[in-house]
């Protein structure tokens, strides 16, 4: 039963973190490569910072942000007179998994953004100029030039999202919530670790490990099969 709970949590985290990070990272990457932004280098440098921090430090930072009494988030809501939004971010079983997802997205955006930026930078500017002459707006240019040309890169990162969310959610949950309250943030590998190391049922723990590994591999293969398009050359 606990395994099913951890399974559900992991799936929720993978889907949520992948979609939110993907959208935000592509959005910011497109802005920083195609728009003339004052201080674009500054933004790029700042957005990458979470990626160099230890996951333990991130757990500490978000414990401070989510703290119900003296936390930053609840205090912002107090200042803005939005008292009804105040939550026990890490104490309420209903929302704690979303708090974990928030921390994961926070740390992942910069990494993927830099990745998308490098493939967007190789798209020739003449494509956009031609599209602009034809009367295509910014959004149209994005959907019919940028997105198709970085599609292969997006496909690759989908695999990364699966692998790294499974791994990082374990590291974060272990350092931040310990799987609690009452197992509501237990994920694949934290359950495995608890069974193998805490419960001393090593065989069972390793069996979970094999299942998770097979599952992540299969999920990555299916996703990359579904999203297969002909690679556009330019």
């Amino acid at each position, binding site marked *: 039963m606990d395994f099913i709970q951890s399974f559900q949590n992991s799936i929720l985290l993978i889907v949520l973190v992948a979609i939110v990070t993907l959208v935000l990272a592509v959005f910011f990457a497109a*802005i920083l490569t195609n728009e003339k932004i004052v201080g674009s280098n500054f933004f790029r440098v700042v957005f*990458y910072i979470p990626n160099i921090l*230890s996951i333990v430090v991130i*757990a500490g930072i978000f414990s401070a*942000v989510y703290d119900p009494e*003296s936390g930053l988030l609840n205090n912002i809501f107090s200042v803005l007179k939005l008292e009804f939004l105040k939550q026990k971010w890490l104490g309420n079983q209903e929302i704690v998994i979303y708090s974990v997802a928030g921390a994961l997205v926070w740390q992942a*955006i910069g990494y993927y953004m830099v990745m998308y930026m490098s493939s967007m930078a190789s798209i020739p500017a003449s494509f956009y100029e031609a599209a602009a002459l034809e009367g295509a707006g910014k959004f149209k240019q994005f959907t019919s030039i940028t997105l198709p040309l970085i599609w292969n890169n997006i496909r690759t990162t989908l695999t*990364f999202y699966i692998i790294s969310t499974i791994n990082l959610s374990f590291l974060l949950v272990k350092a931040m919530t310990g799987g609690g309250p009452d197992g509501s943030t237990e994920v694949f590998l934290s359950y495995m670790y608890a069974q193998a190391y805490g419960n001393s049922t090593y065989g069972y723990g390793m069996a979970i490990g094999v299942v998770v590994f097979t599952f992540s591999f299969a999920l990555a293969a299916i996703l990359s099969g579904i999203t297969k398009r002909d690679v556009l050359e330019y």
Partner: protein
Amino acid sequence: MKKSPGIRTETLVKLFIYVALIALAISIVIPVAWVFMASIKENEAFYKNPWLLPEGFHWQNFIEAFRDAKMGDYLINSVMVTTLSLLFLLIVALPAAYVLSRFEFWGSRFLNSFVKAGLFINVSYIAVPIFLMLLSWDASIKPFLDDGLFLNNRVVLALIYASTALPFTIYLLSSYFQTLPSDFEEVAAIDGAGYFRTMFTVMLPMAMPSIIIVILFNFLLFWNEYILALTLMPGENKTLPVGLLNLLAAERAAVNYGPMYAGMVIVMLPTLILYIIVQKRLTQGMTVGGVKG
């Protein structure tokens, strides 16, 4: 007259873009900066509004973290483990990557795909099996060494760190070696240089950009790693992230915030300083490719 609505949407879009950028930048800078501020606050200040600036520098937090929470000892351990791991890694990975990318021999194709298969293995899966393996090795040498040799050993931890980083490092280095023209080696061979001389004096200097990227990425990896260190070092010789983990847990039980934030600063300051120095290389090095642990 006709142009003005167009300009207006243009400015609105621009405004929206800047708001979004600044919002994300704030959401990253503020929590990190807040930790730095909190590390010099007095303990009573944590019960007041968290947005108040610290009243003067309360260095006591750092002294407590270094002395009582032993972060000083852990810092030395972390420096030792990270340096040793990088050393082991480079000693093995540089020749291996060079050979795998340049020479055809019996089994070289198998070795190449074997190393690439290693990219899929994740440290979190194998932490417990490694622990069990070391435990049984310790048990088997118990007649000779009572304390055991393999668990709680910084050198062994460094060896394991290095070996977990090998697939990624070899993959990255050998894909860079492949882009180097082979003319240089031919010239070196004509001039009478042997394999080792060719590698050390011709190939490695040319591969310097990728070697620097490898050192940077792996420094961050080893410095920040905690699950192996937590599992394999149950004794005194903890590394910094594990020490910080203990501080986080202690803070939840007792209420002593200051040293915890001081500990966080101690862990992240070296990586931040390094990042500021080399940020350009690091964010460009991303294009060389790779999977994040």
